[in-house]
């Protein structure tokens, strides 16, 4: 299990290669890469702030929950902070499991919680200035998929 919060740009493919190196008996590996959208130039830069020492343990606890819930044999999260340009990767999540459904659901679960709940603060810099943004309503709705005992189908 590996959780990294970093300012450096990263290559999702290199992250997937590194993750794939040490998977004892996985049958499926799922990765998700979140990319800063170009949005027709409306967002010129994103700025992400984390509370170091608080944000990483929060993500680690989330990943641990996902591992137990979906029987994951491995999981990795890389999250950017600082200035992020359109087209750059913001977040990378990889999960490994014996069967593909578990790997898919594990990655999906981690992303839904990261997007709506994770301790980050996000500022959008556009042609009309900068503004702090809050999670979209859709992100909160995604969270309701994981309530109660059942997993979504």
């Amino acid at each position: 299990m590996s959780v990294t919060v970093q300012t450096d740009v990263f290559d999702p493919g290199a992250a997937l290669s590194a993750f794939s190196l040490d998977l004892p008996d996985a049958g499926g590996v799922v990765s998700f890469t979140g990319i800063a959208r170009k949005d027709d130039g409306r967002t010129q830069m994103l700025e992400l702030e984390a509370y170091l020492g608080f944000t990483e343990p929060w993500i680690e606890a989330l990943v641990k929950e996902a591992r137990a819930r979906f029987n994951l044999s491995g999981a990795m999260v890389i999250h950017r902070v600082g200035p992020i340009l359109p087209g750059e990767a913001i977040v990378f999540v990889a999960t490994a499991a014996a069967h593909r459904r578990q790997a898919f659901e594990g990655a999906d679960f981690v992303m839904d919680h990261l997007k709506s709940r994770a301790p980050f603060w996000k500022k959008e810099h556009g042609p009309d200035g900068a503004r702090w943004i809050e999670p979209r309503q859709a992100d909160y709705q995604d969270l309701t998929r994981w309530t109660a005992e059942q997993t979504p189908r």
Partner: protein
Amino acid sequence: MARVLLFGGLRDLAGWREQIFEGVSDLAGLRSDITRLYPDLAEAISCPGVQIAVDKAIVRGNSVLSAGAEVAFLPPMSGG
């Protein structure tokens, strides 16, 4: 003494990111000092949705601050 950290919009509002407050022994005392020195910030950190972490753990209500405690005011999180 407490080390106060501001995040997100609170930092822009206050114009600072980190500051030492001397002679405070609990959150109530810290809030009083902030109200006196930074009334706008005091109002902002009283809003629902603003969470407080003492030494990187979320607390609710008043809380004793040990010497050198780190107090972070966390506006609503945007997610990753």
